[in-house]
Every structure is written in structure tokens, then in C-alpha cells.
């Protein structure tokens, strides 16, 4: 196919109309607009119209473009380069590494492109197939060590049918530019393969054998792990008004989740938040691996002041990289923050295309795009029997904090867990401010099912009694109800609330969660022989105080057991003892 050419016919912010002069055009292909100073602006075909008109969304600022500027089409869809060297990197929404860009300019000037993966680094490649072997798309050719893992080198997934290995390099150090093998298809056509290949971002990578998410993924966040868990390969929707703690929660998840690889898609959000991650993480040691947290992290940053059209690309790129590491047999977690900004970018483009708007002016097809995106998460049983998973946690920033809007609703329909952030809880500084009553999850918890219902029941009771207290005053309810209310408050204060900024309290491993739950259960199960609201409140204040102190003590500290006994003593001291046994 001859690559098409054209000339700019209209410019309206990021939407540019082009009249093609030669060649055929594919919807979704990448084109470059060459402006007066020779800069090449990357763009994507989003519409083909009568009269040889093609509409492009431009991933850069369109200032100084003029009618008649030359457009070169590439014939290729927007793709991401997959191969060793992705982990630890920070790129923009089009896979340009930001540290490399910074060597050229302080500001994100237009038309700058750098190699997505470092082509100078030599990787130690160990082949696992030899001349004469039969391979196909997805077959493993060998591996290189990358940070914490053996990174498998694949035959590009796009190849179909059988190929015979004609030639294979010996074990040694190679760059990703170097041909490592030659394969021949059944028609005798040969093909040179390297350690990296392109994959179109909008095309989901096929599963080998898809399975369902059933194993809980510990996050270190108690309210999630105990009540509203996410599973390996699962999806969660995390909406909330601004200031309810989405960002802090995302950072906690990025640090503490028990995934092998964490991909952060900073889509249309504050640059400062991504900066905190990629400047802090290299310094932080992951206690499980003993290596820097950055070694398992990849950050795609298309922040709010970067070109809007590239927001969508950034989300899809993160997902494609996630699918690739799932094919490596790893557990991958994507934090997409925020999917609303992606939806808004679609809304802007849709408006410029003068499409008939749906609710709140979002395009009609928004719900389909959102469900297709979350469908790329999942568990894959690979050819070698290993299991890889891709989990997606998407934040949603609903206008006015109202969950009854198109993006939140579409996300709710597509995800397995719902973590609704509540302004009332964050105002009361009850962090993480995940609504204890309205949130839900269909994945299994680290606790037993009956233990989860036990806690949820107490929380619901507590809420009912609290509203009775507001109506009737403390004197209007019985001591029994007041005790139940205090127990619910205590559960919230010492177990569900967590100080993310505290070294110890900020992350709770599974074993500690179990210990903590047992003590909480003991407190709740113990009947109390106290009369009078003041005395009851005071009793629970002492327990709360002791428990909060306990939360700050390391599990291997000598004070840990001592503090636990102290809590239990406080509980027993006022326990109800049956008379006349």
C-alpha cells in the first residue's frame, strides 16, 4: 500500500482537516503534519469523510499551522514498543521517555521524539530455541534479565502460522536494535526478529487461555483487604469528589500492592503527583524484593497541561504494556488516574467533530469504550502453564462528586469492585475515606466470608444508631444500643481508619491484618457490664487509645505483644461476668 499524502485544509484546536492528494488512508493510522519551521507534529486519523477529507486529532499544540501545510501518513496505527527496558521508565503519553526529552529542552516543546526504549543498553540474551525449531507468534525465543525478572523475548504476537528458526545468535550481550534470529514461514519468506517489537495500542492482546479473578491481591490497606478486596486480574472503580483522598489512596496502592509490576497512567491529572512518584520511588526500598520500588514501576504521564488528544493514547499505552508483562507470567497492576480526564478528552474531540452529544455532552459511545478498556484486565493461563494477571484500578472524577454521571455509571457496570470515596468521611478525617456502607466487591476477602458480614453488620447497625442519637440524643437510646454504637465507632477508628503517612500503620501485611481482626473481634464479642453513657464512652476511649498505640508498633518490636495484652486486659476488666453460674 502506498502511503498517503495530503494538505491541511482546516485547523480547529487539536482537530485538523486534511485533503488527501494521493494514496489510501486507514482510520486510526498515524500521520505527521509538517509545519513551517519543519517540526513534525504527530497525529492520528479519527475520521474519513467524503471529498477526500480526513480528520486528524493532533497530539501536539497546533499553533502556527496553516492551510496547505504538508501531511504525511505512515500507514501504521498508533503503537507501543514492547521489549526490555520498560520497567523503571517515565514516559509521556506517546512513549517518549521524559528524562531523554529533558536533555533536549526544559519545556515539552512540540515535535520532539526520542527512542521509546534505550537502544544503547546491552541486554544479556540467553536463547531458548535453536536452528530448526518451529515457532509461532508468542513463542519464547529466549530471555534477558530485566530488573527483578527474567524478561522473555517473544516472537511478535502478530505473526500467525508456523515459522522455522533459520538462524539464532549465541548467548551474549545485544541491544534491542540487533537482529537476534531469522525465521522462515511455510512459503519460504524469511523475517529478521529483534528483542523488541511494536503492538498497536488499541488492539487488545489475545489471551492464551483466559481464566477468572479469584485470588485476592493484598494491598496493605485494611478497609480494602478486609471489606472490599480486589483480586489478581480484577477491576475496581474508585470515584470520589476532589479532596476525598483519591491521590493518597493511589500512591498507597502503588507502593504497597502485592503486584510484580505496577503501571501508573497519570492521565490528565496534576504533574506534581506523578513527580512525587518518580522522584520518591527510586529512593524507596520494596521490603519484599530488597530493591528500589521504581524497579517494578512504569509511569506514563500525560498530565493535565499536556496535549489533550494524547490522554487517550496514554491510557491505552499503559494497558498494552500491562498486557505484555502479563504475557511474561507476572501479576501486573494498572492505576489509571483518571479515566474521567480521558473521557473528557473524548468529549472535547467529539464536540469539535460536531457529533450529536449524549448525556452531559459526552459522546454516545463512551460506555462501550469504557467497558472494552476494563475487559483488557484478566487472568491468563499461559502456554508454559504459568499464570499472569492484569488488574486495573480506575479512578473516576465525577463532576460535582455526583456518582450519577455517565463515566461513573459506565465504569460501575464494567468493574468488579466499587470503592466510593465520601466527602463526609474525609471531612471527618476518617481516612481512607472509602464509604463503608455503599462500597462493594465481588472478589474474595483476606478474611472469611462470615467475618466480613460480621463487620459489615456492625457498621450498618452503628450507622442506624448514630442517626437515632442525632434525632433523640444520647439519652434517648438504651445503654445496649449505645455500646453497639461505640463498638462500631471503635471498629472504624482502629481497624478501618489507617494513617497512610505512618511507616507502620500505613501498610498492613496479611498476617498482621489477621491478628488485628482477631483482637477487634474479641472486643466486639465481649459483652460489657457498664451503666451510663459517660462510663461507656470512657471505656471505649481507653481501648481506642491503646489500640491506636498498638497500630504504631512494628510487629517484630518487643512492645508489640505487650501492647496487645494491654488492650485485651482493658477489654476484660469491664467484661460482663455472668452471675449465679
Amino acid at each position: 500500500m502506498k502511503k498517503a499524502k495530503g494538505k491541511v485544509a482546516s485547523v480547529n484546536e487539536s482537530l485538523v482537516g486534511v485533503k488527501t492528494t494521493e494514496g489510501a488512508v486507514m482510520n486510526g493510522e498515524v500521520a505527521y503534519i509538517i509545519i513551517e519551521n519543519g517540526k513534525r507534529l504527530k497525529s492520528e486519523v479519527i475520521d474519513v469523510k467524503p471529498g477526500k477529507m480526513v480528520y486528524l486529532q493532533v497530539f501536539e499544540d497546533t499553533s502556527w499551522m496553516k492551510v496547505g501545510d504538508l501531511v504525511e501518513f505512515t500507514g501504521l496505527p498508533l503503537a507501543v514498543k514492547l521489549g526490555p527496558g520498560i520497567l523503571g521508565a517515565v514516559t509521556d503519553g506517546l512513549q517518549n521517555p521524559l528524562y531523554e526529552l529533558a536533555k533536549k529542552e526544559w519545556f515539552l516543546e512540540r515535535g520532539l521524539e526520542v527512542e521509546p526504549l534505550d537502544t544503547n543498553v546491552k541486554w544479556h540474551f540467553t536463547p531458548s530455541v535453536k536452528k530448526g525449531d518451529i515457532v509461532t507468534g508468542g513463542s519464547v525465543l529466549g530471555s534477558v534479565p530485566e530488573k527483578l525478572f527474567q524478561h522473555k523475548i517473544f516472537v511478535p504476537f502478530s505473526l500467525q502460522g508456523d515459522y522455522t528458526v533459520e538462524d539464532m545468535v549465541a548467548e551474549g550481550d545485544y541491544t534491542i536494535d540487533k537482529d537476534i534470529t531469522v525465521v522462515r514461514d511455510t512459503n519460504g519468506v524469511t523475517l529478521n526478529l529483534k528483542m523488541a517489537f511494536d503492538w498497536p495500542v488499541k488492539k487488545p492482546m489475545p489471551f492464551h487461555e483466559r481464566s477468572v479473578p479469584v485470588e485476592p491481591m493484598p494491598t496493605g490497606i485494611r478497609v480494602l483487604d478486609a471489606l472490599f478486596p480486589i483480586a489478581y486480574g480484577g477491576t475496581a472503580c474508585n470515584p470520589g469528589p476532589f479532596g476525598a483522598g483519591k491521590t493518597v489512596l493511589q500512591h498507597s496502592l502503588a507502593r504497597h500492592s502485592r503486584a510484580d509490576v505496577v503501571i501508573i497512567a497519570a492521565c490528565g491529572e496534576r504533574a506534581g503527583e506523578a513527580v512525587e512518584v518518580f522522584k520518591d520511588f527510586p529512593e524507596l526500598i520494596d521490603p519484599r524484593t530488597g530493591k528500589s520500588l521504581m524497579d517494578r514501576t512504569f509511569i506514563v504521564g500525560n498530565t493535565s497541561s499536556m496535549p489533550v488528544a494524547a490522554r487517550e493514547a496514554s491510557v491505552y499505552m499503559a494497558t498494552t504494556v500491562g498486557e505484555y508483562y502479563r504475557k511474561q507470567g507476572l501479576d501486573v497492576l494498572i492505576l489509571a488516574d483518571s479515566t474521567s480526564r480521558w473521557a473528557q478528552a473524548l468529549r472535547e474531540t467529539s464536540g469539535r467533530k460536531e457529533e450529536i452529544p449524549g448525556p452531559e455532552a459526552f459522546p454516545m459511545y463512551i460506555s462501550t469504550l469504557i467497558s472494552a478498556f476494563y475487559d483488557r484486565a484478566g487472568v491468563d493461563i499461559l502456554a508454559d502453564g504459568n499464570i499472569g494477571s492484569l488488574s486495573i484500578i480506575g479512578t473516576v472524577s465525577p463532576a460535582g462528586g455526583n456518582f450519577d454521571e455517565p463515566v461513573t455509571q459506565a465504569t460501575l457496570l464494567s468493574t468488579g469492585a466499587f470503592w466510593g470515596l465520601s466527602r463526609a468521611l474525609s471531612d471527618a478525617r476518617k481516612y481512607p475515606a472509602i464509604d463503608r456502607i455503599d462500597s462493594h466487591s465481588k472478589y474474595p476477602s483476606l478474611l472469611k466470608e462470615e467475618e466480613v458480614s460480621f463487620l459489615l453488620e456492625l457498621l450498618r447497625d452503628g450507622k442506624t444508631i448514630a442517626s437515632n442519637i442525632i434525632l433523640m440524643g444520647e439519652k434517648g437510646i438504651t445503654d445496649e444500643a449505645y455500646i453497639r454504637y461505640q463498638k462500631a465507632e471503635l471498629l472504624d477508628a482502629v481497624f478501618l481508619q489507617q494513617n497512610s503517612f505512618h511507616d507502620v500503620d500505613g501498610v498492613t501485611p496479611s498476617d498482621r491484618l489477621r491478628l488485628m481482626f482477631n483482637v477487634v473481634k474479641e472486643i466486639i464479642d465481649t459483652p460489657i457490664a457498664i451503666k451510663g453513657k459517660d462510663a461507656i464512652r470512657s471505656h471505649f476511649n481507653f481501648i481506642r487509645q491503646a489500640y491506636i498505640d498498638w497500630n504504631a508498633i512494628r510487629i517484630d518490636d518487643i512492645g508489640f505483644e505487650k501492647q496487645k495484652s494491654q488492650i485485651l486486659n482493658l477489654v476484660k476488666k469491664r467484661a460482663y461476668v455472668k452471675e449465679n453460674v
Partner: protein
Amino acid sequence: MLKKTYENIDSIGRAILSIKAEGVHNKELAEVIYPNGNKAFAQVIALNGDQVTLQLFGGGFGVSTDCKIRFLGKPVQIGFSDDMLGRVYSGNGQPIDNGPELLSDMVRVAGPSINPVKRLIPKEMIRTGVPMIDVFNTLVRSQKIPIFAKAGEPYNRLLANIATQTDADIIIIGGVGLKYDEYHFFKQRIEEAGSKSKTIMFIHTHRDSIVEGLMVPDLALAVGERFALQGKNVFVLLSDMTQWSDYLRQVANAQDQIPANQGYPGDLYSQLASRYEKAADIDGAGSLTILGVTTMDDVTHPVPDNTGYITEGQFYMKDGYLELFGSLSRLKQQVNDKTRHDHRSIMNAMARLLSESEERVKAQKFGSVKDDYSLRLLDYRKTFQKELMDPFLFLELEDALDLCWDILAKHFKKEEVGLSSKLIETYWPEKGTFKILKNMTDE
């Protein structure tokens, strides 16, 4: 280069003009030349074949079909030099203080954002002397944070106070849709505080065209960014961004854009973000801090709502007080563990108790509050408001922290405040030994 002049104007709207022309660049600056020789600026905002749409800086009123349009072959720029300090400019970049025009370097306006890897993590507290800020929502260098308030609240006074009481090297005031007396107030405050020589003002008042109002933040930020790149710590004050968003809505409407929420264009978020994101602590250079004003009735209105998702928190002002609930500094965690080691804990304890007392306020309306603890909570709330929430009382951070302990001890028992035993041992004032509170009641 020969500048082309065109005279076949097709249409004139409130702020938009269209004309047939060739070889025109997107975002190019142009001049409208009136039959009497007067000139006004305009900027290209869309191209379609030979049809060029321009935004008129001076508005469409008085523009006639026999005006000519001359394309100037350059983008919108603003002069930049140290001589601008102490001067006042309008939204089109011209001086309005009767001073001389300056010959200076021209810098681009609304340029691309800085590469995130060139940003530093903000780590430096800005002391303002306002307890609700220093203790509860600490301001950090390079933060972008607006005041949310109803029209008529003393937000401009607070804005000017913060800018002049702190250690900013350069203050840039971007006034959008100011009433004349508000402009006058800023001028006076800056002079009284002796800060005139480090201040530049870009002022748009209600008599000026809305397009000039739209330009003000871009001019202020472009100049501010330049000073920051030279190593200066710059404060940019933007008042009022709700007016600015309203102008944006009017212009979008004039261009027949499909409205998203309440008539605002779908890109309101991106438009606000590209301004606020100019705030940065730059690696190897200075910093740019943005303090804005967002007037509002209701926080779920599209402007405060979108702003809240962009800025690093907000100060919520109500009835002249800075409220605790509704206010937030997202960057406070970066600095409030390096001040005094009780800072974070006491901040949280005070907030938790205040929130508990807010529930009692609700209950009080039903007449159901009679128990001692609830009554103490309500008293606590009164003391809190009186002693801490007035933004115009100056108190050093350490004194404000001591005051918090005094207030707790005045109303509560040790075990009621939920603070760790260690902190209570160190800071709990014994009966009658208040450090700050007592002094105040003595006066």
C-alpha cells in the same frame, strides 16, 4: 516580511470576526485597522480553507465591515524585563499607569508546560502567620491553591496579606473582572506593605473587553515563569478565576461550541489546568506559586468543581472565617512532619473533634443535646472558631500549635482526644498553665 492586509470581513460578533485570507497561521496575532486609523489587536483561533476566524481583544462593538485586518506574522507575546516591576498593565499587555512603554525582550505567552522531570517535589513551607493555613493546611512553595468564597468575602484582602507577609521575591497580580475599587485596593495594599518595587500588575476591570480578561492569566504567568527561570520565588495572584471561566463560556458560546455542563465548554478543565499547572518548583531555578480566587455559591458548580480537581487544595472562606471543613492543602504532608513533631497529630485530633462537634450542632437543632460531653464539644467549637479561624489574626506556627493544646486541655480529658500517650506527656498543659490561651483571655 511583507505583512498582508485584508478588507473583506464576512461577519462580526461580540468577540469574534471572520474574514477570507490566505497564508495565515493558527494563533497568529493580527491588527484591526479602523477607518479612522485606530488599531486594536486580534488573534487567529480557527482556519477553514480561506476562512479565518479571529478573536477580537477589544470586543466586536464598533468594528465595521470597512475595517481592515493586518496579519502581523508573529504569535501573541509579552515584553519581559526587570523594569516592569512596579508597573501596571492591561489585559492586552499595554501599560495603563501613564508610565512609558518599555523596550524589552519578548517572551511567548501560553507556552508548553515544563517537563515534569524538571520539577522538584515541593518541600518548603511558606509561613503565612494564619493559623488555619500554617497549622491545618500548610502552604508550600510552588503550590497552586485558590480561595473558594462567596462574592463579597474579604478574599482579596487575604490574598494581598499572604503575598506581602511572606518572602516572595516577585509578586504578580492578575486581576480578571475586578471592580475598580478592588483594583484600587490591591494597589494601595501593595504600596502600604512596601512591596511595590517587587510587584507587577496585570489588570482587567469590568469596563474592558472580556477577551482582554481572558488574556490576563496567560500574561501574568508568562512573565512569572520567566522570573522563576531566573531563580526568583514568584507569587502569582489570580482574582477571580470564576469571572475568567465565565468569559471563556461566552467566547465558546459565540463560536457555537457544544456546551458540556451549565453552558461551560467541555474543555473547561483543560483550560483551567493549563494555567494552574504553570505553578512549579523548578530544578536548578526558582519557583512559581499560584494563589487564586474562585468565587462561588456552591462547591459543585462547574468552576469550583473543576478547579478543585486541578489545584493542590483550596482555602474555603465563609463569613470572613477560614473554614476547616472544605479547606485542604494537598502538599501539607510534604512539610508538616518537619515543623514540630506534634504538628500532624494535633492537627488531626483538633479536626476530628471539630467534626464530632459538627454532628452535635445538627443534633442540637432537634433539641437532643443534653449530655455533658456533647455540651463540651459545642463549647470547644466556639473556642476553636474564636481563637483560630480569623484569617487576619497573625500568629507564628509554634504559638498556634501551643494554642491548640491549650484549647484541647480547656475542654477535654486526656483520653478523649485520641492522641498518643507520648505526645500528651510532652505537651498537655497542666490545669491553669495555658501558654497562649490564658494570655488572650487576660487581655
